[in-house]
């Protein structure tokens, strides 16, 4: 909203960095770690706590990449301050802080990545526990099962590759063929190690430096070197296509955005082969990967309209006075809308929060010729004149997601400050009066990064529109029971089909409320379980109703012990929660288990920050409390004797239940 641009003012008060340093000097930083994420937010770190000065600070075009510019410099300093903290001291004050253990190794000096990684993880409320390997010892670090890196049981292992990984093996003088041979050897070594490293391994492509290309004087040889080098990087990337636990970060887009790739002096004297700017960009990618692995991927992008999606102010200029095509600035907004549409096509829910009249907004999204984004692209359109924090809270509630699953983008510093204050869990993206930078700013953080995209992701917006149909049914139904009966719910449970493992792994990562032990599983772990159906139970839960097919919405994990079945965990997407599907699944599994001749079922519940409401789920299905775990006081084990089976809810039809116990692995 341009009308509120007057809210911009000179930087005032202490910046987040000042406050961090002050807390540290007073010995209070460990105790205050829960405030650190808010202090590191883009506009609070560099421009003082009120955030109203964000758009006029030092965020030039170079700052739009996020990892560079004034914010990048301040974040680097914050990382240094935070890296001096003792993780155990932080945990003593805040035992619930999510800790990410990261093992770091590589070809050259890799310790400089620790500061930026500390800061990037802290931005998301996470705490880094780094384990740094020896200089240049990646082969030993990754290959030795008893070594400190492998035994750290890291969530993420970073192996930072640089051009020296190849060129250290190349004789002098050299030809492109020598480089090809050395690159081949490096690839072979990496391929041999990838599967052995526990957790998620992160490799990176390697920028080709002019220092090497121009040691060749003829163009034909240079071309040959470039081809060899591209092939090396391509094959590195292909490794990630084959292995679900391997991620390869492509450094090329980071170098293009920020460059240079190396500080030759530090490379020469200190063996630091990747520049500080490049490591900062890399650390940001890794932090978003850590978020994705922990199920913290944001789910919904909430957008302002005036000067965010189009040029002009609808309430002042009218529909004919706004533009998102056809004018110089209009084309910039057009490009932004295309980028947003691209996100929406991949499962990112889109919503609007705008100070406007609702009907006028609907008219524009329905009929204005410039718009790329249309009504149907948005799952919620909030347009009114209330404070935006209330609108965002409502959007989250409507969608059944937490406020920390939202990302809010607005060009008005006043609106951003209001949202940051009112809904602190929501990520805020600062846009400004330069629409050509909107998309770069939005993408500076990988808020929606995920490991694998599934069919369910691509259909998510449609699924939420189906949800609107359900909502209408609910509002018109006489009672909740009438509503459930009217849904015509059908469920099937069977071992996962081969194409479903990526979705299953994603479900275990994204599901928080009905994740009865908090466990998250990787694709290969799930395949391993499914591959031993005599010992393990793994079922995919698929549901549909009269409004549409919800696809894979849940999972059942268990194992057999003699004539008993142990239910290790249940997951059910919050989209379909509280419709009786969870009870129907357990009843169906119990009935099938009894038919298989099993006599009893054990089940376990372990509380997490998000699953408290599921604590009484097993008792509600007729289970009795068996034990409280003596090692882990919070864990509750339940028992069920299969002399009878619970009645399953009458409004849920079980179309198919197949434990797959006798089958030879997944199909």
């Amino acid at each position, binding site marked *: 909203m341009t009308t509120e641009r007057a809210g911009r003012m000179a930087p005032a008060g202490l910046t987040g960095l000042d406050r961090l340093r002050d807390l540290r000097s007073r010995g209070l930083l460990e105790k205050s770690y829960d405030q650190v994420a808010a202090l590191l937010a883009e506009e609070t770190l560099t421009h003082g706590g009120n955030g109203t000065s964000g758009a006029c600070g030092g965020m030039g075009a170079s700052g739009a990449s996020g990892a560079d510019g004034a914010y990048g410099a301040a974040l680097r300093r914050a990382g240094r301050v935070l890296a001096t903290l003792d993780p155990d001291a932080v945990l003593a004050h805040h035992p619930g802080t999510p800790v990410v253990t990261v093992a770091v190794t590589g070809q050259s000096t890799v*310790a400089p990545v620790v500061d930026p990684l500390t800061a990037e993880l802290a931005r998301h409320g996470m705490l880094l526990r780094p384990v740094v390997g020896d200089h240049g010892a990646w082969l030993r670090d990754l290959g030795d099962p008893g070594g400190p890196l492998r035994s750290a049981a890291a969530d993420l292992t970073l192996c930072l590759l640089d051009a020296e990984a190849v060129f250290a093996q190349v004789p002098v003088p050299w030809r492109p063929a020598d480089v090809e041979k050395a690159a081949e050897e490096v690839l072979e070594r990496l391929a041999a190690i990838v599967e052995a490293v526990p957790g998620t391994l992160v490799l990176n492509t390697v920028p080709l430096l002019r220092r090497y290309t121009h040691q060749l004087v003829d163009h034909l040889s240079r071309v040959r070197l470039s081809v060899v080098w591209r092939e090396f990087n391509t094959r590195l990337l292909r490794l990630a296509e084959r292995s679900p636990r391997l991620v390869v970060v492509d450094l090329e887009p980071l170098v293009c955005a920020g460059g240079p790739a190396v500080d030759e002096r530090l490379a020469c004297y*200190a063996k630091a082969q990747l520049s500080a700017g490049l490591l900062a960009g890399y650390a940001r990618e890794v932090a978003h990967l850590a978020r994705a692995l922990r199920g913290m991927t944001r789910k919904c992008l909430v957008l302002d309209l005036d000067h965010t999606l189009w040029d002009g102010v609808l309430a002042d200029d009218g529909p004919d006075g706004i533009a998102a095509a056809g004018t110089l600035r209009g084309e910039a907004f057009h490009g932004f809308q295309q980028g947003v549409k691209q996100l929406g096509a991949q499962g990112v829910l889109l919503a609007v929060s705008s100070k406007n009249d609702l009907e006028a907004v609907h008219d524009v999204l329905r009929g204005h010729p410039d718009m790329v984004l249309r009504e149907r692209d948005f799952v919620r359109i909030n347009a009114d004149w209330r404070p935006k924090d209330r609108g965002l809270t409502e959007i989250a509630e409507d969608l059944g997601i937490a406020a920390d699953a939202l990302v809010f983008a607005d060009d008005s510093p006043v609106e951003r400050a209001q949202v940051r204050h009112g809904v602190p869990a929501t990520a805020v993206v600062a846009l400004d009066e330069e629409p050509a930078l909107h998309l770069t700013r939005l993408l500076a953080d990988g808020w929606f990064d995920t490991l694998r995209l599934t069919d369910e992701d691509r259909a998510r917006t449609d699924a939420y529109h189906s949800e609107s149909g359900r909502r209408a049914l609910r509002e018109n139904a006489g009672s909740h029971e009438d509503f459930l009966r009217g849904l015509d719910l059908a469920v099937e449970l069977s071992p996962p089909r081969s194409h479903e493992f990526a979705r299953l792994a994603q479900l275990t990562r994204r599901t928080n409320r009905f994740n009865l032990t908090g466990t998250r599983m990787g694709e290969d772990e799930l395949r391993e379980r499914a591959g031993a159906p005599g010992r393990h139970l793994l079922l995919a839960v698929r549901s549909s109703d009269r409004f549409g097919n919800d696809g894979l919405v849940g999972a059942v994990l268990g194992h057999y012990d003699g004539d008993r079945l142990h239910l290790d965990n249940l997951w059910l997407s919050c989209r379909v929660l509280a419709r009786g599907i969870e009870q129907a699944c357990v009843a169906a599994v119990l009935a099938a288990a009894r038919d298989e001749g099993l006599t009893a079922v054990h089940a376990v519940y372990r509380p997490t920050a998000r699953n408290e409401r599921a604590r009484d789920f097993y008792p509600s299905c007729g289970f009795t409390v068996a034990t409280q775990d003596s090692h882990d006081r919070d864990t509750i084990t339940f028992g069920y004797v299969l002399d009878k089976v619970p009645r399953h809810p009458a409004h849920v039809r079980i179309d198919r239940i197949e434990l797959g116990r006798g089958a030879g692995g997944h199909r």
Partner: protein
Amino acid sequence: MGIASLEGFLTLVCDELGLDCVGAEAASADLADLPGWDSLNLLRLVVLLEEHGRPVPVHRLLQARTLQEIYTFAKE
């Protein structure tokens, strides 16, 4: 307080490197004896001094033994 005085330099260095603040007497102490010192701090100082318009040849900085020495390089 800028980099022009030894005192300003020490304050800056402590803030930027996350060290507990040192008095002027620590300026002549061996770097390795400073509480919380690690060798990467020399690399950080390369960047820091350049940002403050006081570039020091990297090989000299990497061989420095005390903060006083680095301050002298930066003043040159």
